């Protein structure tokens, strides 16, 4: 997922502009792109079917497939059929390794563990690809003749036919596998009732292996085909592929393999027609709007019968329970005092700068630890709250000349209001679905920022944002910025700590631990979830607002999914729901790479590895969940 900006319009599957002219062309393009999505989505559906897991690493395998294809084509000069086989086999091996070493050890862990592990794995894989091949785009020639045939009012090329052929062949092979092979029966049986399948003698580890292998092979080939389609590959492909695959899979009904195919074709068509009418930069917006609409109206997908229970009956067990580490108040007070007087000592501006970053991240982590930890809504789109706060504060101060201090508070309030309003339709979702919905909403926010040029200035971004100031005094010197951000974070942390010990905090945790029971006691889920998002939205918005004035320039890519995931890693490192943990985690993840002078391009790799190690060995984090 690394290096992926929230929109990455240049990597979306835009049709070949000059060739696309008729509706038939848009239809063909939609179906071809849909075919590519289907190869990703089918794998996601298989995996979700047997293990109720959304594999966020699927896009990374797609990326790996594209680069293996590049090595095969450009360096080894393999003929096309052999290239496809090489990519499929190599990607399958990667999938098997992920299953065996990344996920199988987590079989008996809490439900959040495998989800987080796939996120960590995707970071690691993407970074490894980036470090091996550099982030610069590469050309991936298809070796097919560049001719187009006239079909009715449109045209079709050999590559279109290849993609359609691979899609169809894969579908037939998969169908035959599931219908006629013994392992295929085991896959279907496990998807329907894991325990009962085990009682028939099915070895579910082998079933998992099989689906990961198949999913990876299909995903890898898909990445290669996309690379050939645009004659370009780069590392930002990964997150986009995961997102599109997840959209298609959820639209078709999580775990429903034929549904995933239909969902993919539908997604391809919706995007293609959307582009035809509104233009390329809207393509992804349609995908995510489709996702949110489906999640809200038909969380089981378009084809699930109404009586069907949601495939994820989870409560409580999503978060690892643990006994939090008690830190005495005096120790916290001493630590806070120490940080407060730090600028009086001869420390370098570089240290202060690093800690300012930590305090800003700390505010975001406070927000996320409340939302994900205390009330159990694991958000993957938290950077959107930063963006809303940052844009609001920047525009308030620039356009309406609101004093910066007030503008930042305005940014916090805007983030609280807008963030809560955006997420509220998804309040009835649970577990993984919350994560998908928040991820999609995060993308939507960034796409709206990109496209709403009259307000946000679109891709140009906002420059000349006034510096931080308080009561008319500009805060320019690093110590003053340091004190300001530290003070704001401490105030937010104290408020949040107070909140957690109150009746409200207990209600939040009751909802997290068992929302069915909580509802039975008369707690209104919507109200409490709203309150949590309002509080959390404010903290994140303030962080974004401060950042905007600090950076003086922001655009739609300033606050991206990478930051959302970094915040999640921080929160898990500190212990979900743990206020002190969120701050400690921020200082650790921002500070340690500086202390060890780790080059920027290795940091994300390290965050991914940290996440993986935590999930495996200390899911309750450093200070324990609360």
């Amino acid at each position, binding site marked *: 997922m690394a290096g992926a900006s929230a929109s990455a319009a240049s990597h979306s599957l835009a049709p070949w502009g000059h060739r696309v002219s008729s509706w038939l062309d848009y239809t063909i393009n939609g179906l071809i792109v849909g075919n590519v999505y289907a190869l990703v989505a089918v794998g996601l559906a298989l995996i979700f079917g047997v293990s109720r897991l959304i594999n966020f690493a699927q896009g990374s395998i797609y990326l790996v497939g594209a680069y293996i294809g590049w090595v095969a084509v450009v360096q080894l000069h393999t003929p096309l059929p052999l290239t496809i086989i090489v990519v499929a086999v190599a990607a399958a091996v990667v999938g098997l390794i992920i299953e065996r070493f990344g996920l199988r050890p987590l079989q008996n862990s809490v439900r959040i563990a495998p989800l987080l592990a796939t996120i960590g794995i995707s970071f690691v894989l993407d970074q490894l690809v980036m470090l091996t091949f550099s982030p610069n785009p590469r050309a991936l020639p298809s070796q097919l003749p560049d001719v187009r045939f006239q079909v009715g009012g449109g045209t079709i090329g050999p590559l279109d036919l290849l993609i359609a052929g691979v899609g169809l062949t894969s579908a037939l092979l998969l169908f035959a596998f599931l219908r006629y092979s*013994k392992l295929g*029966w*085991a896959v*279907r*049986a496990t998807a*329907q*009732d894991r*325990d*009962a*399948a*085990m*009682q*028939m*003698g*099915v*070895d579910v580890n082998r079933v998992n292996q099989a689906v990961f292998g198949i999913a990876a092979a299909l995903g890898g080939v898909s990445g290669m085909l996309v690379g050939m389609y645009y004659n370009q590959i780069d590392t930002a492909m990964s997150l986009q592929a995961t997102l599109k695959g997840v959209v298609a899979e959820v639209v078709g009904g999580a775990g429903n393999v034929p549904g995933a195919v239909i969902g993919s074709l539908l997604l391809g068509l919706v995007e293609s027609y959307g582009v035809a009418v509104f233009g390329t930069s809207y393509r992804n917006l349609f995908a995510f709007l489709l996702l949110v609409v489906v999640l809200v109206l038909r969380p089981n997908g378009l084809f699930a019968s109404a009586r069907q229970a949601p495939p994820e009956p989870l409560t409580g067990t999503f978060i690892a329970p643990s006994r939090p580490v008690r830190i005495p108040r005096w120790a916290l007070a001493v630590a806070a005092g120490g940080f407060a007087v730090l600028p009086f000592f001869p420390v370098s501006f570089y240290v202060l700068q690093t800690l300012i970053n930590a305090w800003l991240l700390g505010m975001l982590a406070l927000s996320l630890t409340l939302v994900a930890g205390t009330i159990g809504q694991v958000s993957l789109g938290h950077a959107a709250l930063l963006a809303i706060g940052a844009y609001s504060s920047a525009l308030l101060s620039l356009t309406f000349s609101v004093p910066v201090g007030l503008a930042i508070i305005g940014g916090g309030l805007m983030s609280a209001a807008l963030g809560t309003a955006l997420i509220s339709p998804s309040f009835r979702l649970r577990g993984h679905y919350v994560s998908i919905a928040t991820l999609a909403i995060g993308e939507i926010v960034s796409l709206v920022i990109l496209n709403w040029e009259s307000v946000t200035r679109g891709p140009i971004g906002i420059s000349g944002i006034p510096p931080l100031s308080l009561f008319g005094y500009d805060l320019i010197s690093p110590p003053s910025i340091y004190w300001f951000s530290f003070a704001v974070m401490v105030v937010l942390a104290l408020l949040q700590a107070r909140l957690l010990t109150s009746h409200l905090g207990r209600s939040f945790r009751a909802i997290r631990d068992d929302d069915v029971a909580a509802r039975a006691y008369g707690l209104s889920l919507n109200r409490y979830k709203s309150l949590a998002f309002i509080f959390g939205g404010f903290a994140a918005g303030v962080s974004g607002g401060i950042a905007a004035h600090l950076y003086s320039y922001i655009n739609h890519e300033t606050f991206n999914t990478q930051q959302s995931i970094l915040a999640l890693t921080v929160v898990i490192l500190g212990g979900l729901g743990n206020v002190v943990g969120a701050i400690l985690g921020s200082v650790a993840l921002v500070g340690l790479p500086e202390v060890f002078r780790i080059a920027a391009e290795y940091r994300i790799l390290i965050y991914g590895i940290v996440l993986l190690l935590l999930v495996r060995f200390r899911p309750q984090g450093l200070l324990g969940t609360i």
Partner: protein
Amino acid sequence: MTNASGEPLLALTGVNTFYGQAQVHFDLSISVARGHIVCLLGGNASGKSTTMKIILGLVKPRSGEVSFDGASLLGLSTPQIVRRGIASVPEARRLFADMSVRENILMGAFVRNDRDAVAQDLDKMLTLFPKLGQRLSQRAGSLSGGEQQMVAMARALMSRPRMIVMDEPTMGLSPLYVDRVLELIRTINQEGVSVFMVEQNASLALEIAHEAYVLQTGKIVLSGPARALKDDPRIRDAYLGGSEAA
């Protein structure tokens, strides 16, 4: 319960089971003699289903021993246990709802590799459960409860087990089907398959069982030959809501 025929086929000895902090079994000992039907009676939440799960390896006991045919089952996974010759009819049947009846029954033979013999056994199931013949290509989830029970039993038999464990096989069935199921269990048993069944309805179960155990909040409070227990006044005191109803 170990009778003249030697060591029991299945033996649980001194089993203690926990779900987190909560203890479900207290020093549980049960044995099933070869060729016998043994019944475990008990009220709701007494730990009956958990006993089944212990046998099948779905839940591991904290202490105690579980052995089948003289060998311990404790280190084994569920599929390995199934391969040793234990088949199950789970609580609420647990068919593969979206697969056909035929596929469900054949899933029971998952551990076997002798295709021809499996096909013959499928035919045999259709003589044993004649009603299923017309339903073979139907979705299993669309069958009635009684029909589903037949499929679940056929599915269990397809592995040619030495022992079948059943969790409340008569639950939720009409009286007609209850009789039919009990009769089938007897038939299965007469063909040499040992049966361990969990039941709430004592009077029904005692009619076909050789031996029975009564479980109360995780402890065996009574056990012995079914014939003796049927007339035992203590059985009414110990538990047995089902007996008055019948």
